[in-house]
Every structure is written in structure tokens, then in C-alpha cells.
């Protein structure tokens, strides 16, 4: 049974998370008001209650929660180091730095960026429950992240890895029902993975086959769907597994899954 763990969390997730948080890096402090006006400053700090105090040439200004859309500080000095450590696989050191950034830059944009990296680090260390918590904190702070497709999938992968099946099941059902076609196709696949984790092999096979049959237009996921369906059938000792492996090899010969399937035939 294969659990799609966050060890596969891609750099793409990090990049997207970063993009989700901020369009461009700040070189100085600024606030974007609710009227979408950008107010530059020389210094900025956030209070525990979410109030932002921006120092401008005209003096200090305070923005209360609800009055601003975004408040951005200068990049933390140790942020780049954290990124390097994450990329180098030195997760323990990275976590320490990132936790500090989250604390110090709360409400100031860099906390969200740091959280994205923290989630990756936790996932890589197998601390999936913590990764889930981080994601959920991110979504609480910025509800627009609900629209971030890749981030949502990264979160769902962590839910699966952390064994939070009930919550994941609820989410996937929602995506299957209301999501667009690419998302629905992936949701069926992940639901199949969830069921495999719970030893519901036949039900998992059906979900994989749903992707195969109902989402033929989603070609990027077809090889995986075929392979997983075949694997599930193999577990059920169903001879038709071979038929699916052969179909995969014939229709998607250059996919890495086809290479795996060839070994099975």
C-alpha cells in the first residue's frame, strides 16, 4: 500500500506557496490598505493583536485589523539561509530558523512564507501532523489560499500521510462533487490512496478506475491512474490487472509508470 507522503512535496509547492503569499519581495516596509492603496514606510512592526505600526517620513501610522489588506516587512536576514537549509535537506536547522521568523514576522507576510517552508521541512522529516497544522494555520490567516490549487493538494497529501482520513475524506468528497475536472480527477486518485491506506482495496480500485474511465481528457494523470488501478487489482488477485498494465504500456509508453508496468507484465 503506497501512501503518497510529503517526501514528494515538490519544490513547486514551495514556489507556489511563496507566490501565493506575495507578488514581489519587499525592499522596504509597506502596507496595502483596504482601498488598495500602498503606503510606504521606513519601519514596520506588528502588535500581538494584529495592529500594524508603520513609520513613515510623516510619522507613525497605525492600521487596525480590517483596515489593511497586507502588511509587509523587509525580508528577514535569516530567511535566505532557511531556504538554503531546506533545499539542502537540513531540515532540523531550517525548522529552528523558520519558527523564529514565524514568531517575529507575524502579520508581516514573511510568517506565511516561512510557514510554507516549515510545512515542507516537517513533511520531509515525516512529521506530517505538524505539517498539517502549519497548513491549517496558513489557511486561517489567509483565506484566499483556499484557491491555491497546488497548496491545497500539498495539504491534502499531508493529511493522507498523517492518517487524518476522516478530514481528508470529507475534503475529497467536496472536491469530487464540486471541483473542476483536473481537481476531481486527482481527488478520485487520492481517495483511492486513502482507501488503500485503510485496506479497502476494492473500493480503492473503483476510485482509480473512475479517473481512468471518466477523466480520459486529463492525460497527465491517466498513467498514474492506470498503474494504481492495476496495482489494486493485483492485490485483489484479479487477473485483469495485467490488462491494465498492458493498456498503460501501449497508450503511454513514455510515462515512467509504463516502465514500472513493463516489469509487471
Amino acid at each position, binding site marked *: 500500500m503506497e501512501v503518497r507522503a510529503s517526501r514528494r512535496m515538490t519544490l513547486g509547492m514551495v514556489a507556489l506557496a511563496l507566490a501565493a503569499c506575495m507578488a514581489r519581495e519587499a525592499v522596504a516596509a509597506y502596507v496595502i490598505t483596504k482601498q488598495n492603496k500602498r503606503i510606504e514606510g521606513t519601519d514596520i512592526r506588528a502588535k500581538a493583536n494584529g495592529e500594524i505600526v508603520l513609520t513613515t517620513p510623516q510619522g507613525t501610522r497605525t492600521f487596525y485589523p480590517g483596515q489593511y489588506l497586507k502588511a509587509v516587512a523587509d525580508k528577514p536576514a535569516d530567511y535566505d539561509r532557511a531556504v538554503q537549509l531546506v533545499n539542502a535537506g537540513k531540515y532540523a536547522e531550517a525548522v529552528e530558523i523558520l519558527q523564529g521568523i514565524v514568531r517575529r514576522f507575524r502579520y508581516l507576510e514573511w510568517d506565511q512564507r516561512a510557514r510554507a517552508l516549515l510545512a515542507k521541512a516537517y513533511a520531509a522529516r515525516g512529521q506530517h501532523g505538524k505539517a498539517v497544522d502549519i497548513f491549517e494555520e496558513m489557511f486561517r490567516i489567509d483565506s484566499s489560499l483556499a484557491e491555491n490549487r497546488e497548496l491545497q493538494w500539498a495539504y491534502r497529501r499531508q493529511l493522507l500521510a498523517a492518517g487524518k482520513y476522516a478530514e481528508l475524506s470529507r475534503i475529497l468528497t467536496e472536491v469530487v462533487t464540486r471541483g473542476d475536472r483536473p481537481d476531481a480527477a486527482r481527488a478520485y486518485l487520492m481517495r483511492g490512496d486513502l482507501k488503500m491506506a485503510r*485496506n479497502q482495496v476494492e473500493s480503492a480500485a473503483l476510485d482509480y*478506475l473512475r479517473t481512468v474511465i471518466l477523466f480520459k481528457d486529463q492525460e497527465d494523470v491517466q498513467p498514474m491512474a492506470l498503474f494504481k488501478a492495476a496495482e489494486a487489482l493485483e492485490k485483489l*488477485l484479479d487477473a485483469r490487472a495485467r*490488462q491494465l498494465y498492458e493498456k498503460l504500456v501501449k497508450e503511454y509508453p513514455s510515462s515512467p509508470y509504463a516502465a514500472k508496468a513493463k516489469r509487471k507484465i
Partner: protein
Amino acid sequence: MKLTGTNALPKARNVSLSPWGVLVVSALMFAAAGPRAHGDRLVDREVEFASGLISLGFPDMAEKVVAELERKHPGLKDRVALIRAEILISRGKLGEAEEILGTLPPDSPKAQAISLALAAGYYRAGRLEEAKRIYQGFFEHFRGKVPTDPDLKRFYQESAYRFGQMLKQAGDWEAAQEAYSRVLATKPGKSAERKLMVEMADLYVKLAEKESDSGKKQRYLNEARSLCEKIQWGGLDLWFGQSLVIMADIKLAQGDRKGAERFLRDNLDLLKEIDHFLKANGLPLSESPMAGARYLLGTLYEERGRKMLSGRGDREKAIEVLAKALREYFNVFAKYGESEWGSQAAVRGNELKSFLESLGRTVKVDFGAYRRQVSATEFRLADELFAAGKHDDAIREYLRVLATFPESGQAPRALGNLARAYAVQGRHLWCLAVCGYLGDRFPEKEDAGLALLGVGKWYFDRNMTNRFLKVYDIFLDRFPQHPRAPGVAFTLGGVLKKAGRPEDARRYYDLILQRYQKSKYFLKVLDIMAWDAYRRGDHSNAVVYLRRKMQALPAGYEKARTRFQLADALLKMKRYQAARKEFEGIMRWLIPKDSVFNASTVDAERNRGILEKAVFFRGYCLALIARSDQSRAAEARLGAEQTLQRFLVSFPRSKLAPLAMSVLGEVQLGMGKYDQATKTFDTLAERYPDSPEGQRALFELIRAAMEVGKYQVARDALAGMVKNASKYKPEDFARVGQLMLDSGLYKEAVEAFRRAFTGKERAVLERSLFGLARAYFELGDYSKAAEFARDLLENYPRSALFYDAKFILGQAYRRLGRADDAIQALSDVFRYADDGVLINRANLLYGEINEEKGDLRAALASYQRIALLSDPQRGDLRPMIEEALLRSIGLGNELGLYQEVIDTCDRYLKLFPDGEKIDLVRKAKAEARLKAAREPGTGTGESGEPALGNEI
């Protein structure tokens, strides 16, 4: 000669429901559907999914999806009917699919969808008339109109085209034209249009050839020409090439053979271009118009050559022309073997070759690089004959081709068809010979295995059991690793079991257990074997199979259930410790909250039931251990008490709760906890008054007390019953009386049975009368014993206790010294009984009575009756036979009948070589021999003494 020849044979049909299976659903289900709610969309998706599963070859999974859909949405019956029909059609059960169709309104889109799926199914099965009927009905519905919905339109196009193909094959060209016209009317797109125009032009030529009216004929040919010109104006492609061939055909139809020949030769270069195009783009040459052109050229050359030969023309020139024809034929045969002309070219080429050889010519044919394709073509002709049901011709062709290509890639399939052709002809020995050959020569080839399966299926479908067994045995023997082997073995096992041949079935099941442990049938077979063993009481074997099954299963409900069955079988074998361990194992599996056995909610729900039973039975096993093993009784009772108390707390509403309480009471009695036990039984009666245990709680107390040897408790309980006699029924007292009797408490038995007399129920009264007779007998009151026995016999002469009563009466009379009355009582046993045990028992008693009377000879005669007339093979009679022999020896000695003693000893020694008295008997025999030697004439019968047996 014609291009689109009358020599054409029906071709193999490769119609598939896919992807139209999906479109059947979507087209007709969603036509004119408006925006749909999420829930509806999901339902639509599931319906589409089920349909897609069928197309992908998973009708069994489609059934599950449909069942779940129906469960969640009971109002979806009609839509589900469509999928069910598709499933049936995919399995070839067309009749059952028609039944579903019959339940739907005929005009409904769903009915139409099923109709068309059915038509495709009939078409695939070769049932053309039925397919035609359905298509005609469908198109009647669309007369004068074309669907505009894109899905429906596509579906309409596909159906019309398929219908046209079917009609064309059946030779109904006009109707085929009409069908193609329908497709054209929908404006199907350039490529499809051009293909259709070619087909229609071809049909016009066919119609012209058939037409005798010259005006009509010309009209058809004009139509054909007009279509060809249209195609040619449309560009240079495959259809352009086909149109050229049709143009040659038109000339032929007009009688212009030379024109046709010239036309073809002039356009060969153009056709070669098309061939190059096909090769360059990796497209099959079977589509090339060159095949038809060269075949036609071949026929024209042949006709010319033969005409020249029959005339006075130059013979050599004629032969040259024929050689040209031969070249054309073999070219088509070799290069375009897969085309529709390939097999015809093969036939004509071979015929022409034979003809030339008959003229004394040597014809050398070297197919070179095309040899493989040629063999495929050769086989195809035989296949076509076979598919057309021409078995004689097919056999002849297969034998011919196999002689040339005995081990080519097509050989296994051809051999399978050959075997089937023999089977159809009733030449079963030949069929079997071919099957054996297939297995011997092609054991590694999967398609050889499949070929054998085809033959087996042929016999299977006709219920020719012994024949299909032979074929499948070859398959299983020679193709043991074939993917279908486990399924075949399993099916055969099931068929034989159903036919009442369990031993034969077992052979196949054992095969699966030995060879196919990784197949899905392995567990199924273990299940079957375990259940069969369990049902016939062979719990020992049931345990073996269940253990294996349990080991093979992954964690989940099924594994837990199997372990429970294993524990139950052990319990039936009275292996209480082993059973207890299994129940404990189940508890360890299922109790933890995060148990992997409860991964799914469905499994968790079902496992609760098993856990409940496991806990109860653990306690029960401990109680049984306490009963049967004194050395462990204390420990076992403690464990039983704890377990059963826990059970009652955890599962108070369980159906087993009353029984658990009853067993708990028994255990507490055994532990000496009398007050607690009494309280337990009181609670039992109070809490579960409607349960059998609750209703007879006091009885349960008494039973339990007897079980653990606490007789005083039982007596006290009885006293309590007597004190409150009005609360108890006569049968309660009768039951208690029986318990007392069985435990040797005769006084108490008398008391209880006397109380039972207040009732009127016959069974209770009979039981009570006998119980009293027996109890008084045991108490030494033989008069009363005889009195009650007599009462029973007089009032209930047909009682099941008749013989028991007679024996008691006889014994009582004997003890009262009334030997004659005793004998009289036994006489009814002799008169009515036919059971050997009863008769021997009576004889033994009779013998004893006679001994007491002093009539030793009569006694000896009784014993000899037993010794000589009873069947020593019957286990239940052997103890009495042995007893009778020993007594005979004693009496024989007393009577001085030494020869009889010797004979009796011999009989004993023969029947009971390991008997306990073997030494005594040997000694008795030796002594008798000595005595007989000393007193000659005694006991031999020759001395005049009456031989034994005369007195019987």
C-alpha cells in the same frame, strides 16, 4: 469477373460496444438535459462510470457500482436497468437483457439505448435478423429527421453505419444504401463522407450486376460513376484509390473487359503512390486499393488466359497470361493478405496453380519475406470457412494449411478451431486427439491454452460433462501456469460438486490449494472445503482448512470471522483449551480502538458481533474446561466468572446474555459461591424473563448444581420448587425429575415426578411414569417399580418408552421372584423388537432369569442365541456377544457340554483376540479339551444328547 465478388465470404465481425457503451448512456440520458445539480451530476457520473467499466471488461465491478447506486437512490431504477442490461449484453445474456427492455416504456430514451446495445450484441453473436429488427425499429423513430444534439447525432451515425455494414454483409444492398444515406444526411465530416461514398458506389455496382432491367442497371452505374467522380474531385487519398477500382468495376459491369484491364494497368502507378503513402505513415496495407485492383486484374487475366486456351489461339501465350494472373493473385495474397481480397486471392491462386500444374507446368512460388503474412492469410480462409459454419471445408483447409505451416504463430488457434469443427461433427475422438496434440506441441503458448479452453467451452455449453472434463484436464495438465487455469479448476470443482460428485470436485479444489495459492480462488476453495468438512462433522479437517485460510487473509472482518469459525470447530471437537486460545486471539485483535481490523466502518460494525461472541465463548470454554478437567477447574472457573461478568456488562442486550448468566451461575456454584449463584439465577429470571434460560432459571440452577456436583444445592432448589409448586408447570417438575434420576438422586426424582402428574400432557405423563418406575427400582421398591411400569404400558402402549418399560418390568418381576412374569414381560420384546440391541438385551436378561430358575439349558440357549446370531461387526452388539460367550462357557462347563465349551472358546478367541478374558478363555478351552478327552462322547451331539439349538 467482378471486383466486389460474389465469392466474398462473410467476414469476422469485430464490433465492440466501446466507446459507444458510454455514449449510449450519455447520448440518450442527457439529451435535452438542462443544467444539473451537483448531486444529479454525481449520479450521472456514476452511471457513466458503470457503463465505462463494462466497456473496459469489468462487468462485475459495474454490478457493484450499480447496486450501490440503487441502494443510495432507489428512484433510479430505470437508469440502473439500462446498466444492468448492458452488463447482461456484455456477458452474452441477450435474452435476459430483452426481459429488462420489456419492463420499460418502449419510447423512452432508456429503452432505445438498451435496444441499440442489444442490437450490437446480437450482431456480435451473429444473430443478424434480431439485430436488424431492432435497428429498423430505431430508425423508424427518426424517420424524416436527424438528431441535432451532438452526442445523439454521433450515436445515430454510428448505429446507421453499423446497420449498413450488417445489411451489406447480408446481401441486402438497397437497404444498406438507405442506411448509408442516413449517415450522409447527418453531414458526418469529409473523411467519413468520402468513405461512405465509396461504399455506396460499390453497392450501386453490386446492384447493377444483379439487375436485369438495362435501364435500371444503367442508372445504378451512373450513380456509381457520379459518386466516384465526386470522390476524385475531392483529392488524392485512400478513397480516391478505391474509386479507381470501382471505375474499373463499372466498365466490367458494362461488359468492357479490355477497358477495365487497360484502366487498371494505366492507374497502377497512382495506386502505388497510395501504397507509399500508407507505408510512410505506418498505416496498414490492408486498406490499400491496390489489393482490389490487382485482384481484379488477376481475374481479368485469368479469364482471358482460359478463353485463349479453350480457343485455337497460341497456347504458350495463353499460359503466359495465366502466369500473369497467378502473379497478381499471389502478390495480393502475400502483400495484401490482411485485406478483404487476401483470402480470395489465395484460393484462386492455389486453384490456378493446380490448373497450370495439370497442364504439365511447374509452378514455383517463393513468398520470401512475405512468408509469414502468407501463412496468416492461408489460415484466415480456413477461419472464414469455420466462422461460416462450413465445417467440412474448414477441416479440409486447416489440415492443408497446417501441413504447410504446422507450427506457425496461427497454428494453435487453427488447431483449436479444427478440434471444434471435429466436435461439431461428432468426431470426438479426433477432437480429443487434436487437443492432446495442442497440449503436447504448444505447452508454452498462451493462445494454445485459450484454444483448448474454446474447445472445452463448446462441450461445456452442451453439458457433455465427461468430454469437457477430458479437454480441461489436458489444459490443466499442460498449461498449469496459464492465467485462466485457477479459474477453470475452480469452475470445474463447482460444477462437479453441484452434480453430486464431491470426490471429483475435490480433485480440482486440491489442485488449487497446491498450485494456485496466489490466486483469488485459493481462499474461496479453503472456504468451501472448510464448510463442507464442518457440515459433515469432520471438524478436524475443517480446522486445518480454516487455519490456512486465516493465515492467508489480510487483517479485517473476514479474517476475524474465519478465526471465529476455527474456534467453533475446535469447540465442537471438545478441544476447549485450543478453542479458548482462538477466542482470546480474536479479542486481542478486535478490542483495541485503533485496531487495523476495524480500519473501515463497515468492518468495525461487523466485527462488533464477532467480538461479542468471542467474549462469551471464551467464558463458556473456561466453564467447559472446569467441567472436564478437575486439575484446572479452579483456575478455569475464576477466568470464566470474570469473562462472563465482563460480557454481561459490555453486552447486556446480547442474545447470548441469558445463556451467559446461566453459565455464570453454574461456575459460581462450582466455586462454592452459593449465594451469588442463587442471585445470578434470580437475576436471570428477572432480567430475561422471556428467554428460555430465564423461564427455567430454577431448572438451570439445579442443572448447574448437578453439573458441578453440588447436590445439596439441587435438593434445596427442588424443595423451593415444591414449596411454590403453583409457580411451576408439570413439565418443569418432569425435567427436574429427569435430572435427579440421571444424577442418581432417586428419592428426589420420585418427588419431582410425582409433582409432574398434575399435568395432562401425554409426553410429561409418560416420562413421569417411567421415571417413577426407574427411580423406585433403583430404590429397591420393586413392587412400585412394576406398578408404574405397568401403568405406562397399559395407558400408553405405543409409547416410545415401551421397551424401556418392559425391561424395567421384567427386572422388577425378577427381583420379586416372579420369573414367569418376568419372562412374559420380555416376550413382547422378542415379539415386537427388530433392533439387535434390544433383542440381545432381552436374551441376556432371559438367560439370567433362567439361570436363577435353575433352567441352565434354557439360559445357555439364550446366551448362544446372542453369541451365534448377532452380527459381530456391529460395535453396539459386541459387548453383549462377548458377555454371552463368557456366560456360555461357564454354563457349558456346568452342564458338562465340553465340546460346546471348546467351540464357544474358539469363537471367543476368533472374535475377541484382544479381549480382557482371553487368558481365562484359553484356560477354559484347555480344561474342556482335557475333560472331553477323558469323557468321550460327552457334549458332541453324537452321543445322543440333543444338540444346542433344538431348544431355541
